[in-house]
């Protein structure tokens, strides 16, 4: 049985390690969490296999056979040595594992003097990201999309305007709740360029499942370009009547940047969200002013059958004027037929 147990354990560990558990790793923290996971698997899988093998072995070897209906087993009441062993060994294993974990935890939560601070604000049902060290006009640069320079340690200061939320990028492996009344922190050093989902992991109401944004990890140079493009005063484009240059794509904003499609159904964009009203119906016959107000100040007129405070109120801040114009034009065009 011992040989069988050892072989099964090796096979079990091999299978457990072969499974591709995690999403792509995109931060220095993720690498450390992933290897800790492997260590935990190597310790714990054999324990399960041990129990399984003993149970199956007993079932095979000691099962009641015909004619043994009145037979009893030997009256073994216990064995102190054995009991000491199976108390001590797991205790030592667990204390060892906890000590090791303590060091890993310390490492992944290291502070760095060079860290870039990003203020994350959650609200039902969206995120806003602000960069206090970067000015845009008189205010800190704010965006509905999270842009992060690669290899720069980031400190997220997380807040919420209403209920609990949880700021999580699975590819970073780190998450923290956004708690009313306090500012919570989480540190991440992104190390792989890419586009990752920002997920709300704490139940926050009807739109919880759609509270998603995008985190872009980019090369430092590109991050600077993005910052400059956001800092450019918006007046120029607006004065030009939205003409020609960089005509933002309304459909892309609807489905991507602003995430409207997560909650709203719009046939033209192919979205089917049900958290908010169906735009094909409620915008029919409405003018652009109405559409604009409904985006910027959603509480002004609420569609029948929907409660207040469901739609985020920050689109006026997070969308640039060009984006807002493009979105209004797009919605007007698609819903007026």
């Amino acid at each position: 049985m011992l040989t069988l147990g050892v072989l099964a354990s090796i096979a079990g560990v091999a299978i457990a390690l072969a499974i591709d558990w995690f999403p792509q790793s995109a931060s220095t923290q993720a690498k450390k969490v992933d290897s800790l996971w492997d260590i935990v698997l190597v310790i714990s899988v054999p324990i399960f296999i041990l129990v399984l093998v003993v149970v199956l072995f007993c079932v095979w070897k000691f099962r009641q056979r015909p004619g043994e209906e009145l037979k009893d087993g030997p009256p073994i009441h216990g064995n102190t040595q054995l009991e000491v062993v199976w108390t001590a060994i797991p205790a030592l294993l667990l204390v060892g594992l906890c000590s090791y974990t303590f060091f890993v935890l310390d490492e992944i939560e290291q502070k760095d003097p060079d860290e870039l601070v990003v203020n994350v604000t959650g609200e039902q049902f969206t995120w806003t990201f602000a960069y206090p060290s970067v000015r845009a006009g008189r205010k800190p640069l704010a965006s509905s999309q999270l842009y992060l320079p690669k290899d720069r340690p980031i400190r997220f200061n997380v807040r919420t305007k209403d209920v609990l939320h949880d700021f999580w990028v699975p590819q970073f492996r780190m998450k923290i709740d956004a708690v009313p009344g306090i500012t919570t922190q989480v540190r991440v050093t992104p190390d792989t360029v890419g586009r990752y989902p920002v997920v709300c992991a704490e139940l926050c109401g009807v739109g919880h499942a759609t509270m998603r944004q995008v985190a872009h990890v980019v090369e430092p140079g590109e991050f600077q370009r993005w910052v400059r493009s956001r800092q450019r005063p918006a007046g120029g484009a607006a004065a030009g009547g939205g003409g020609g240059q960089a005509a933002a794509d309304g459909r892309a904003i609807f489905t991507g940047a602003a995430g409207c499609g997560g909650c709203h159904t719009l046939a033209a964009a192919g979205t089917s969200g049900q958290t908010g009203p169906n735009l094909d119906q409620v915008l029919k016959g409405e003018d652009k002013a109405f559409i604009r107000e409904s985006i910027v100040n959603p509480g002004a007129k609420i569609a029948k059958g929907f409660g207040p405070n469901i739609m985020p109120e920050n689109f006026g801040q997070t969308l640039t004027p060009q984006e807002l114009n493009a979105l209004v034009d797009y919605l007007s065009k698609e819903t007026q037929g």
Partner: protein
Amino acid sequence: MTATSRLTGPGWYRALWMSLLGISFAFGIVTAIRALYGWDPVLDGNAVLTVALLATPLFFLVGLGGFDYWFYWASGRRTRPEDHSGHGAHSWRDYFRINTDHKVIGIQYTVTSFFFLLVGGLLAMLIRAELAAPGMQFVDPNTYNGLFSVHASILIFLFIIPVFAGIANYVLPLMIGAPDMAFPRLNALSYWLLPIGGTMMLISFFAPGGSFSTGWTAYAPLSTEVPVGQLFFTIGVQFAGASSVMTALNFLVTIITMRAPGMSFWRMPLLVWANFSTSLLVVIATPFVAASQFFLLLDRALSFGFFDAGKGGDVLMYQHVFWFYSHPAVYIMMLPGFGIISEILAVKARKPIFGYRMMAFSLLAIVVLGFTVWAHHMFVSGMQSWIRVPMMVTTAIIAVPTGIKIFSWLATLWRGVLRLDTPMLFALGFLTMFVLGGISGVMLAIIPIDIHVSDTYFIVAHIHYVLFGGSLLTIFAGVYYWFPKMTGRMYDERLGKIHFWLTFVGFNATFAPMHLLGVAGMPRRVADYAEQFAGWNMFISIASFGLGLSTLVFLYNMAASWRGGPRAPANPWRALTLEWQVSSPPPVFNFDAVPTVVGGPYEYGVPGAVHGVFKEGAEVPQPVGAAAGAVSARKE
């Protein structure tokens, strides 16, 4: 019986008009106060509903007769000697009345809990139907949030916790040689609080704005802002919790004061030890969940602002108070199962429990340690970060007493004569599946791993491996094991085995892939999810429908066997514990002669051993061999 006495005597007629009186009372007092203070509007539906939810159940219980004896006594009249006319059940109608017989109450408890298992299971089927594909198909997000909230609340507060109380209610007094529980009237009252709490949670679906939708955790401040359906949880939990506390007190007093002569603590069966430990947990911990929900109620109804940061409230305090109950609650939902497994493994392996004293000590160790780990549910909550490390260590350490139990059960199997019938299959299924739940529990204690997987499907997988693979399999094992004693009939062994295999396979196919989904990044409590998770979710939904259908086999077996199964002998399992030494079902007052306990409960394989004898002063007079237990069953 005259029409007047029908209306004034205890029973359903009086309960009905008293309930209506309760609703009018709520309506009257709220409207009167609002009119007095000149508040606008005078008629506030939510305020009336709040008071009605609190008052109506109490009026209903008074009507049903739950307080009759105490009122009589409290009014200073001469006490009525108990004539025990309420003991026993003569027809099915007796199960719908206040009854003080622990065996009737045990069946009331168990059957009611299983009704809620079916309801909770149906809600799970709806959840899985919606989750079968990404996007929204059958329900809107608000209804979906309600479905999983009611699913969890019903199965935790109305199934797992009370079904264990039900099984123990039936078996425990018999096991310790007592004629009944210590407080039979309190026992009846604690049962009747249960359907009230459950009904309240279920009818929340008809509340304006839908049912409560903040999960069974009801985290503030979301739970103070959502529509009025939330109150059905906030107040429903109070009734279920009060029921729990009363039953636990009853068990503690019964175990401490009503053991048969010779039944020392070290001769108690482990099920009794397990319920002793569980009751300690319930009595100490349950007031905390009551407090957390009372705070919510005060926040909602009277704007106290306990959890309103804008008024200086502390949002994290809700979670601390809630988990100070709800982590011990996991052990409240597991320890009685440990007891059931110890009974079954010893009898079915025909061997004494290996390391009996360590088994009892490890239960007590879990009780103590269980109170030191609550904040491991809060590693990403934003609480003071240093608290995480000691909570990680205690959480890991609690695996040690749990490990002792697992290894002792394995050693009990070793060299036994294993009878692989339905209760034993469920017990062995529990043994393997619970280890998986325990291992994922230790993984969750490891802070960096928890930071990634908390609030994901990994948590959903873990909790179902603990509460389904753990608790529910022990409940099935226990129900099959004591079915002959409770009903006097044998169940169908073949159907029982089919039920086991369908459940075991369906359970793993449903919940094992959830580990993968969670680590891969699928959050829990979402009605919609990213396209990349679609494949596994479809698989899980199909598997879960199979798992749901397997329950039909169980239901059919129970119903058909109860009606027309073969008559059960007193002791079909050749067990030594006292409940098997009386007829099936037992006499109205359990024992015609008071048993004397002369040895341990699990002396299988010891020639001539008996646990209890029924003749005054008799010293193990029975024939040698395995049949000793069975023979001592019949006095004379």
